[in-house]
């Protein structure tokens, strides 16, 4: 059996997942990365994306909108601002956030607009992936 590490996914309101995982794909702000046991300790911020967890009982996917991940050799914790298990519910919730963000991007300017535009693009991608 492959080596396992502790994986926790928490949002401010509740704990979504806590299990043993073989590997976790994380949508980092500077690019995707996969955390596996014995990964070098790292902290990274997240962009809107899909989190793929290879656990004991198969693969589970979560859509996250931002937050950060703490990776150490034995455990990975993802603190997501908002997180939804992939499914129709997630799609609807994300669509609402996307619309909200689009409206904001429309009225923003400069650097703020850039980051919002990037958020919009990331979210669109997420919705396509899980839909």
């Amino acid at each position: 059996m492959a080596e396992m590490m502790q994986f926790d996914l928490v949002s401010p309101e509740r704990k979504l997942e806590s299990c043993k995982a073989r590997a976790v794909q994380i949508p980092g702000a500077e690019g995707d990365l996969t955390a596996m046991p014995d990964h070098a300790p790292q902290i990274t911020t997240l962009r809107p994306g899909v989190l793929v967890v290879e656990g004991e009982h198969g693969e589970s996917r979560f859509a996250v909108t931002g937050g950060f991940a703490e990776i150490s050799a034995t455990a990975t914790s993802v603190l997501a601002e908002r997180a939804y298990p992939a499914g129709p519910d997630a799609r609807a919730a994300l669509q609402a956030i996307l619309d909200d963000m689009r409206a904001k991007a429309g009225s923003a300017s400069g650097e703020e607009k850039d980051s919002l535009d990037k958020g919009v693009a990331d979210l669109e991608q997420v919705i396509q992936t899980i839909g």
Partner: protein
Amino acid sequence: MPSLKDLKNRIESVKSTRKITKAMQMVAAAKLRRAQEAAEAARPYAEKMADVVNGLAASVAGSDTAPKLLAGTGSDQTHLLVVMTAERGLCGGFNSSIVKIARYRAEKLLSEGKTVKILTVGKKGREQLKRDLAAHLVAHMDLSEVKRVGYDNADDIARQIFAMYEAGDFDVATIFYNRFESVISQVPTPQQIIPAEVPEDAEAGALYDYEPSEEAILEDLLPRSVTTQIFTALLENGASEQGARMSAMDNATRNAGDMIDRLTIQYNRSRQAAITKELIEIISGAEAL
């Protein structure tokens, strides 16, 4: 001496009051359980967040590039007091205990010549502070429509505070809320949120690789950490409010019970006295014949 009819009415009215307080107690107990669950569910996130921020802050502290939320504005002239209370009363000393420590702090700061601004969350605190500190109230967040506090509510409050901070409206922000210990004990707690307080013994998180840089992550995390602290405070407050209401209503129910007992004795005595009086009248009437 109240008549028998009066006493009977009185007993009936206290009985219905007891029914109401009993019902409120049971509702509060149910809500308390839910509020406690919510507070517990939010704890892992808040703890992890505090860990990471403290580790980062300890390693960045002292450098010139430290974000403003951590380093402060370099002055402590203007203080923002965020007073978090309930939207409803009938919960014992819950609201007044928060207002008391906030008022004490405000008076202390004013006597030191500082400027005090107050942001109230919850109607009850505003009502009490309006009496003597009305000139210092700058904003109010209304949560009366909110059935169940969520992260979004905390986010709204945090946004308002950040906007004021960006505009240079204050230098130091402190939140006041009731920390939930148990049903009978809630501790009014002041907590400084801006600039972020780093515990003395926080270890620099030197072990970690940061992506992007430490400063960039901190810049991103500090506002979230403030929001999380506000969210935690809201949840603790929610649980405390229900706990305080539960014990207040328990007392009220018991008092009503005692009062009913007392009134019933008085009623029976008066009834007995009336019967005795009538008997005496009949007997003395018969003797006179």
